[in-house]
Structure formats: C-alpha cells, structure tokens
C-alpha cells in the first residue's frame, strides 16, 4: 500500500506541478510533495524492515532490504533537495536566469524524476527497470538544459546522446537476458522478473549471460559514469541547475549502479568465473584514477565535484566488484554517505556560486569571511568527501581499502595514489575558495543551509556510530548481493 502512495505521490505531484508549477507557492508545494514521498518511503522501509522482502502486484514490484534502503535514501535526498531548491530557484529567478515557465518545467520534471528513480528501484522487472532508467534520462535532460544557454544545451545534448546510446546497449543486454531466461522460464512476463531470474540464475546460459552483462555494463555503466563512458557527467553536472547536479550525483548514479549490481548478481550466479567482478573492479579503478587526474585540472567548481562523484562511483564499483560481505557492506555504506555528502556539497556550492555569480573557482574567494555557514559547509563537506575522519566516508573507505589489501593487494597502491592526488587537487582549491579575503556580495534571500548541515550531521554520525538496525539492514543487503 505504501508502495502505491510512494509511487503515486511524485507522479501526481509531477502532473500537478506541471499545471501550477509557476505559481508563487509552487516551491512550497514541491517541498510538501517531496516530504510526503519521504514519509511514504520511511513507512515502506519500516514495513520491509519489519516483515522482510515483499512482492506485490503479481510480482511486478519487489522490495528487499537492498532497494528499500536506496528508496529511503532517495526520498530523503529528494526531500532535502527540494528544501534547498526553494530559495535557490527564487534567487535564480531573481537574477533573471529563469522564467516562470521554466520554473514550472523544473518543478514538474523534478517530481517526475523522483518518480522514475523510485520506479527503477522498486520494480521487479528488468525491462521496467530499463524503461525507468531511460525515462530518468529524459526528465533530467530537460532539467539540465533548463537555462537554455548554449553551454547547457550542449551539455544536455551530449548527455542525451551518450546516455541514449548507452541505454540502448543496456536494452540489447536486457533482450539477451530475456533470450537466455525464456528457455528456462518460458516466454512471457515472468522471464524478466528479477525474483524468478534470481531463483534460476544457476541454470541460465553462461555465454549468453556474459554477452548480456557486457551490454548491460556498458549501458548502465554509462549512467553510473564509469570511465571512459563518463564524458557526459561533468558537463551535465556543471551546466544544469545546482539542485539537479545534487540529485544527479546523489541519486541517479546510485540507481544506475544499483541496476549494474542487480545484473552482476545474476551473471555471477550463472557464469561460474568471477569475470563480472573483475570487469567491475577494472572499471572502478580506471574511473578512480582518471577522475583523480581530471580533478587536477578543473577550473569550474561544479565540474570539480562532478569528477569527484566519478571517483567515488569508481570506488563503489570497485568494492562491489570485490564482492564479499565486507566489501558490499562498505560499498552500500559508501553509497549512502557519498550521496548525502555530495548533495550537501552541491547545496553549499550552489549558494557559493550564487554569491560569486560565477562557477570559476579563481573568482570565488573568502567564503568564510562573507558567510561562515556557507564557508564551513563547503569546507567540512569537502573534507568529508575527501575521506577525512570522523566523517562516514572515511568509515567506508577504511573498509574498502583494508578489504582490498586482503583480497586485491595489487589494487591498493593504485587506489592510494588516486586518493592522494584527488585529495591534493580538491583540497587546494576548496581551501583558497573558503579562506582568504572575501570578494563576494550579499544575496537577496537567505540561503537554506539546513539541508547541508543535516546531511553533514548524518554523515558525521555514521562515521562514529552506525546504529545496529542500520548495520543489520546493510548486512542483509550485502548478503543479498552476495
């Protein structure tokens, strides 16, 4: 039941905002809808925690600890983002970068995006999963091009084409999957249901699944932003409105990775070799290293953090690739803390860029002097994302690194090199933005920094103390992934 609500609210909210999204109260409405979604998500989560996995609507939807935790995360970040975007978008409008119509588009698309995310997470049907992912692409394409500036159009176009092509590969992979599955499960709807596939994964044809996995990996991997398929990501993050960057980094990448992992589970079950794992590790490492070096050359603050997202996605992918309870646990934890931290950073960055009126880092100086909250938000957020204890990101990186040391000793030096480079690259820039003499101006609306510090507080807490039920929950999920 919560399910219906959970999916219904954002859908209806999207339609509703599509009608009234330009009204002055639209932003509040947006917040309200997101809040309801969040509430429903929590309710569903509690239910699943209490009763365990559930299948609803002739197995069309399947909720287990793995995806329900992502549901909770998604709805939470969605909610905070809506809170943040309220003043942010007002200021944008005030600066005349947005018209009312665009604002309506933004609100509607935001909700629809949430809907597609949740759908992708909740569905049990690999086909629907694909459909949802594609739909997510479409909605976000419109969001990225919201400003209609040449740059934003270019970014959106690249995003669209690259992800479209990628996702097409994913569809081919899905077809192959179905092709393999229908021999065991027979033609018809069941052959794409993850639960059924999971049961019979042992009997699926290895060769087909291998091919299928490659197409799925390339397809969904494009959306995860694995190097070298990542090229759309920095542009889309940099040119879209900041709330969109926040949800892209915080949610979309996670969901795409979720899809990849689901597929990996099946393939591992069928293909006896750990090919899938090695592929993931390879892509993960490559992404981490490339991203780390890209970071070194950034001038645009949002690109900077976009690349940092690529880096962290690489770390998660690597961890999932290693597999095993600890690594998966670490990866899930990293997913959580990364999306929280990164969205928090983007919130802070949003205000910073609005104050500076530019995204060029050399023109942003002395945030601390002008607005301590923004400054500290950015500083702490960056330190958190750089894996500085006592923030939670460190906890997961600690686990990942130590596990890697155990299972893949060859990989640890590479990881460490990348982490070191990334640290130097990001920190030197953040430091010069936060510290020093202020060069910025005041703003009409007071920034909403509640989201930033809520996220950071959660991340901090996770670094010091992971409540038992959460841990138990992660463990369940980790076990599911195997």
């Amino acid at each position, binding site marked *: 039941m919560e399910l219906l609500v959970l999916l219904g609210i954002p859908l209806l909210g999207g339609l509703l905002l599509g009608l009234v999204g330009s009204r002055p109260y639209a932003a509040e409405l947006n917040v309200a809808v997101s809040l309801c979604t969040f509430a429903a998500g929590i309710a569903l989560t509690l239910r699943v925690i209490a009763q365990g996995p559930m299948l609803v609507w002739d197995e069309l939807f399947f909720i287990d600890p793995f995806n329900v935790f992502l549901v909770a995360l998604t709805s939470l970040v969605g909610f905070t983002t809506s809170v943040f975007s309220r003043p942010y978008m007002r200021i944008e409008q005030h600066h005349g970068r947005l018209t009312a119509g665009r604002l309506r588009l933004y609100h509607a698309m935001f909700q629809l995006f949430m809907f597609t995310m949740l759908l992708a997470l909740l569905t049990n049907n690999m086909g629907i999963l694909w459909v949802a992912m594609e739909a997510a692409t479409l909605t976000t394409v419109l969001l990225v091009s919201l400003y209609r500036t040449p740059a934003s159009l270019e970014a959106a*176009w*690249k995003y669209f*084409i*690259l992800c479209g*092509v*990628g996702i097409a*590969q994913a569809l081919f992979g899905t077809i192959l999957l179905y092709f393999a599955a229908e021999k065991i499960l027979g033609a018809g709807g069941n052959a794409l249901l993850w639960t059924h596939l999971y049961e019979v994964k042992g009997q699926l044809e290895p060769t087909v699944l*291998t*091919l299928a996995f*490659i*197409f799925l*990996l*390339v397809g969904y991997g*494009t959306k995860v932003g694995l190097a*070298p*398929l990542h*090229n*759309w990501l*920095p542009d889309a993050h940099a040119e879209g409105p900041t709330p969109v960057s926040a949800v892209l980094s915080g949610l979309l990448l996670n969901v795409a990775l979720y899809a990849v992992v689901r597929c990996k589970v099946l393939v591992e079950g069928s293909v006896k070799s750990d*090919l899938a794992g090695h*592929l993931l590790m390879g892509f993960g490492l490559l992404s981490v290293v*490339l991203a780390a*070096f*890209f*970071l*070194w*050359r950034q001038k645009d603050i949002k690109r900077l953090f976009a690349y940092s997202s690529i880096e962290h996605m690489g770390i998660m992918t690597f961890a999932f690739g290693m597999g095993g309870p*600890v690594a998966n646990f670490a990866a899930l934890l990293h997913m959580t803390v990364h999306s929280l931290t990164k969205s928090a950073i983007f919130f802070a960055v949003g205000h910073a860029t609005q104050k500076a009126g530019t995204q060029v880092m050399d023109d942003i100086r*002395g945030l*601390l*002097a002008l607005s301590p909250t923004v400054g500290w938000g950015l500083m702490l957020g960056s330190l958190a994302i750089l894996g*500085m*204890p*006592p923030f939670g990101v*460190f*906890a997961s990186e*600690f*686990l990942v*690194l*130590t596990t890697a*040391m*155990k299972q893949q000793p060859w990989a*640890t030096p590479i990881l*460490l090199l990348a982490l*070191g*480079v990334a*640290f*130097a690259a990001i*920190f*030197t820039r953040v*430091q010069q933005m936060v*510290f*020093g*003499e202020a060069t910025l101006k005041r703003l009409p609306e007071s920034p909403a920094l509640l989201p930033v510090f809520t996220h950071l507080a959660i991340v901090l807490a996770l*670094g*010091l*103390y*992971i409540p038992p039920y959460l841990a138990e929950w*992660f*463990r369940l999920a980790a076990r599911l992934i195997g």
Partner: protein
Amino acid sequence: MTGSAPLLEGAAVIALWWVAIGLAGLVRARSILFVGRVLFPLGAVGGIALAAVALSAILQAPQSLVLPLGLPDLPFHLRIDSLSAFFLLLLGAAGAGISVFAAGYFRSGEGTAPGLLCLQYHVFLASMAMVLLADDAYLFMVAWETMALSSYFLVTTQHRIPEIRRAGFIYLLVAHVGALGILLCFGVLHGGSWDFTFDAMRAAQLDPRWATAAFGLALFGFGAKAGIVPLHVWLPEAHPAAPSPVSALMSGVMLKTAIYGVLRVTFDLLHTQHWWWGGAVIALGLFSALFGVVFAAAQTDMKRLLAYSSIENIGIVFLGIGLTIQFQAFGMKTLAALTLAATLYHCLNHAFFKALLFLATGSVLHATRERSLGKLGGLIHRMPWVAWLALVGTLAIAGLPPLNGFVSEWLLLQSFLFTPELPHAFINMLVPIGAAALALTAALSAYVMVKFYGVIFLGRPRETDLSHAHDCGRLERLGLLWLAVGCVLLGLLPVPMLALLDRVNALMLGATLGEQAQSWWFLAPVSAQRATYNPAVFLLGILVAFVLTYWGVRRLYHGRVRRADPWDCGYPLQTSRMQDTAEGFGQPIRQIFEPFFRMKRELPSPFDLAPRYRVEIEDHVWHWLYLPVAWAVEGTSRLIGRLQQGRIAVYLLYSFITLIGLLVLVL
C-alpha cells in the same frame, strides 16, 4: 562498557571534558574574556588531571574498555597501559602549561574567532588523548585524522595570509598521505584475522616479509607526522604559521604521538624486530638530527629555527628507537631497556623545553610583532620574565647539565657506549659512529641556541620600536614558569623518572633496568662502576662554588661598579644595527655545511648606492623530491585531460571501442 577500568574511564572523561569546553566556547564565541579567562584555564585543569591519572596508570596493569560506538563489527576499543599512560602524562603535563599560557595569549581579532579557536584547540587536545587511548585501528585512525584536521584549522587561524594557507595545505596533505600509510600498515598488521583491534594484531602471526612491510609503512606514516627527513617539509612551514601555543602543542606533544605510534607498532603489535630495521631507523635518525640542526643554524626566523630544531630532536629520538630495536633484536634486553628509557625521557624533555621556547617566541611576537631575528635584540631588559625563563629552556635544549636535556643525552650516550658489544660485525663498528654524530648534533644545537637566545634577548634592540616592548601577562608567565620548572625538575630528579620509565620498559620489552635504576639517588643506569651522574649534587657543587667565589671576591676586595659606554674601537658612529645579525651568526655553519643547503645569495657590489645583503636558504629535498612529484602529476593530468576534448563523436567512439573491446575480451 565492560569491566571496571577507573583510570581509563577517567582519561576518557577528561577527553570528553575537553570537547565539552570546546563546545562551550561556541556559546560566546566572540567573548575573549570568557574564552580566555574561563575556558582555557579549565582546559589546563583537565591537563593536570590527565597527568595525575596517567601517573597512576603507569604503575598499574593495563586496563581496557569497549565503547558502544564505531563500526558495527568494530566498536571503539580503549586501552591504557604504561606506554600510553606515559605519553598521556606528557600530554597532560605539557598541555596544562600551554593551556595556561594560551589563556593569556589569545587576543580577539586575530583571524578565527576565539570561541572557534577554543573549540579547535580543545578538540586537538582531546583527539591526541584519544590517539593514545585507542586500542583498535579504526578509532586510532579517526582520532589521528581528527588530530590532523583540528591542528590544520589551528594552523590556518590567520588564513588571510597566503603563505599560511600554503603552509596549512602542505601540512594537511603530508598528514593525509602519512595517514594513508598508517592505514595500510594496519591493513597488513591484522594479518587475515578480520579483526582490527590491537589485541588481534598482537595475536596475529606475520611472516617476516609482511612484518617488514608493516614496519616500513608505519615508519613512513608516523615519520611523516614526526617530521623525519625527507618527510619534514611541512614542519618548518606549519610551525611558524600557527599561533605560538599551537606551535608549542604541535611540536611539543603532537610529534610525540607519532613516536608513540612507532613504538606501539614496533614493540607491541609486532613480535619480532630485525636488527636491520634498527639500522635503517638509526640512519634516518642521524640524518634528520644533523639536517635539522644544521638548518636551524641557518634560519633567521625564530619559529622556523625552533621548528628545525624539532626535526633535530625527533631525529635524536629516532636514533634511540633504532638503537633499542637493535638491542632488542639481538636479545640484549637490559640495554634495550636503557635505550628506550633514554628515548622516552628525551620525548618528555623535548615536550617541555620546546613548548617553553615556542611560548617564549609567542610572547616576543606579541610584544614586538616581529618574527625575524634580524629585527630583535636586547629584550632581556624589556621583558625579563620571558627572557630568564627562556634561558632555562635554551640551556635545556642545548643539552647542558644539570638541566633535563642533558640527562636524556647522557643516557643515550651511555647506551651508545655499549654498541661495541653488538654481536654483529659492521654494526658494532658502525653504530658507535652514531655516538660521534650525536655528540656533534648536541654541540651544534648549543651553537644554535646561543644564536637564538643571544640575538633575541641580548645585545641592543636592533629596531627603535622595540623599546616599548612589554613583558608578558600574568597567565602567560604562569604557563612559562610551569614549563621551566618542569625542565629543571626533570633535570634534577632523573632517578624517579627512570623508575617510571622502567614500567614502560617492562611492558614493551619485557625487561627492566634492574636494581641500579632505583638504587639510590645517584643515577647509575647500568652499574655504579660504569657510570654515575647526580644532577642535584652537580648543581649544588656549582652553586657552592659560585657563592664562595662571589663571597670571596666581595669580601677580600670590593663591589664597586661604574657604568660607561661600551668600547667602540674608536669609531663613535656605531648603531645597534651594526651588531652581528642572525645571518652573520649562522655564516660559519653555512660555510662548513655548504652542500646541505640550496642557497641564493645577493651580495652588494661596492658601487651600490643602497647596498643590501640577502641570503635565502632552501631545502634540497623540496627541489629533488616534492617538486618533481608535483610536476609528474601535473603532466599526467595534462595528458589525461586531452581525453576529454569536447567532441561528441569521440565520446561515442570511446563507448564503441569499450564495447568492442569487452566483446573481444569475452570471445
């Protein structure tokens, strides 16, 4: 919480107490009065309490706790044993003095708001305490990095100055890279048991290669924090940048946590030590010691000078550690105990005199707003308190009897005298050279300290506006006094201290100095035949002789004194600027140790209308090691940056090729 561990709980509570004080600072962040006069003294109280707790903990069996925090499979483990207790003692005792000083030192309107400063400062203290208390890798790393982070914020207090930002960045970068090394070290140490508690690591059996790897990583990680050459570059940057109490805390206490880490890993977590580890550490230590002191001699900024002298002292400490490893590896336990005692003693001494000197520079800085030696001078008249208390520190750091610096060097030299007994060819030939180098270092540090003290406090003021320099306030005096008294007491009462240190020996090496250590009030570490030393009697001797001389001269003759101008060599136009400068004083050393330096000189030509002389001392390591790395990264990133050149067709090609490649892979 499991078990009853009163002392451990006490220590943890004090850490919490510090955090609480810090948070209280935020309540009235702008009120310097509240923060300075109330909170910092409370922090000092915490320090004294911690010292007391630690003192009793040294004498007791290890206690441990498990907190319901941390990672699900890895809750926070706490443990206090003689080693950690000793370093806690160091932290508490030195920290108390520094806090008292800081109470009077921090003025508002200097960069960060006082309240925030208070928070960072006390979090720094607390995190150091937690580092020492941690008994599992995760808590240790968390505390370790928190320490780095809080100290980083303290260093960048005046972040409006670009150099300070740069210094902070370098500091945090090196700290972080080091921390990664430590992390790896723990990853090796747990040896397959999926347990990151130190207990598990103690239990783990590593084969020699892995053990060596762990040791190497630990040496790298902790060495980066301790500032061992060539990982020292952050130290002379960060120490001058930070406010003086912070420099004192960093140099006096924080560096010692790195020493603690090395000892913990080497003698506690690892079972066997290989003699050549010791050799490597000795080499590193010697080099750092000489390097540090030679550079210190060439400095013209008083805080940089002290920073380099810290490198020197850390070098000496590593020397001791290396020697201990060797003795231990060859099973000469008593000697190992002697050396370890000397090493730890030196840690404690360094904490006191270095903190004292840094605080003194802080007072000078406040009184004169001047950090470069070339513009100071004659302050002994303006600020007698600081001057005379700093003199104690100067003598102590110069390793002169009967102060504390001498005791540890004496012990270390004594243990060096045994190295010929090492059962390994070469080693027993080479290591004694260490004694020579150590002696050289000690003598050089005396040179450096004469320069330091003489140029700052003696002579005539080199700038006119030094004339209205004022002495430091009451609280600052108290802080300085505390540390100075500490130096004297540590110098005069080595025997009880050694009795304490023997507990650490027993825990770490399973051996003690035996009876002689506690024999009676003569310090006779090995045997009364071999060597004895009693600073108290020594001091008494000097005093008696002094008094007799004075009394004799005054009694037999007279005490008439006439004041006059100093002799001007018949050249009446001498100004105070014509005194020897710091550069001048360091010149012979620069000349002798030319190859150490990378010098840029500006010599005036006879025809200059405004002749000026400048000399810049730079560090080869920076140019040979760090810059190349930076360039390498830069170059790589430029190459990789080309990948992303904006054309969508190329991006599509990437995915196309990836796809094809993968297909080929699986075919």
